């Protein structure tokens, strides 16, 4: 078993009590993506989201690898606020610090933040430990 650890990534939000914009740390994992016999050279930060059923990526990421996004299986995705997205499923490989996960991801034109969800990510690794106090995620492959 191989373990890799990722520290949370700084982002920003405006504190509603003070009105000040401050740093917030979010659990993001840098991922390299393969699809359609192409592999992205850049790493893209994906939010680790236990509330997400599946992996959901921006369509532009898939297009950069030559995927014909709308040729994938069309799926509907419901968010917490009831907003519905249309996405298209494709077979992909996630590369995480040298570890490969062969899986599926849904690509949507309406999604910005790439999400790693339970099916297709969490269920493909041995164990994930989230330490909110120390702000890290440890993944065992």
């Amino acid at each position, binding site marked *: 078993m191989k373990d890799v650890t990722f520290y949370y990534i700084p982002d*920003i939000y405006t504190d509603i009590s003070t009105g000040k914009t401050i740093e917030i740390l979010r659990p993001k994992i840098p991922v390299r993506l393969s699809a359609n016999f192409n592999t992205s050279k850049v*790493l893209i930060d994906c939010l680790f989201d236990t509330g997400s059923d599946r992996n959901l990526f921006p369509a532009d990421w898939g297009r950069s690898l030559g995927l014909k996004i709308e040729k994938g299986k069309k799926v509907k995705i419901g968010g917490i606020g009831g907003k519905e997205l249309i996405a298209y499923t494709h077979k992909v490989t996630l590369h995480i610090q040298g570890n490969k996960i062969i899986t599926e991801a849904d690509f949507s034109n309406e999604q910005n933040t790439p999400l790693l969800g339970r099916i297709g990510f969490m269920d493909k690794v041995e164990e994930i430990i989230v330490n909110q106090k120390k702000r890290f995620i440890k993944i065992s492959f």
Partner: protein
Amino acid sequence: MYNSYMKVKELIKLQNKWVAFSKDRTKIIDKASSLGALLKKIKNQEDLVVSFIHPADRYLSP
């Protein structure tokens, strides 16, 4: 250990944008309002990490 490599005032300027950072995240290489535009600008250079900087005026609840 967590390392605060980017100051809040710098991140504020980048909100709602896709940003390409150096691998150690200390330098901003390029930015764009869409991922597709950014990937074209950086021409898939190696050793960059790309991140979407979420708007500060809302919590993130995907």
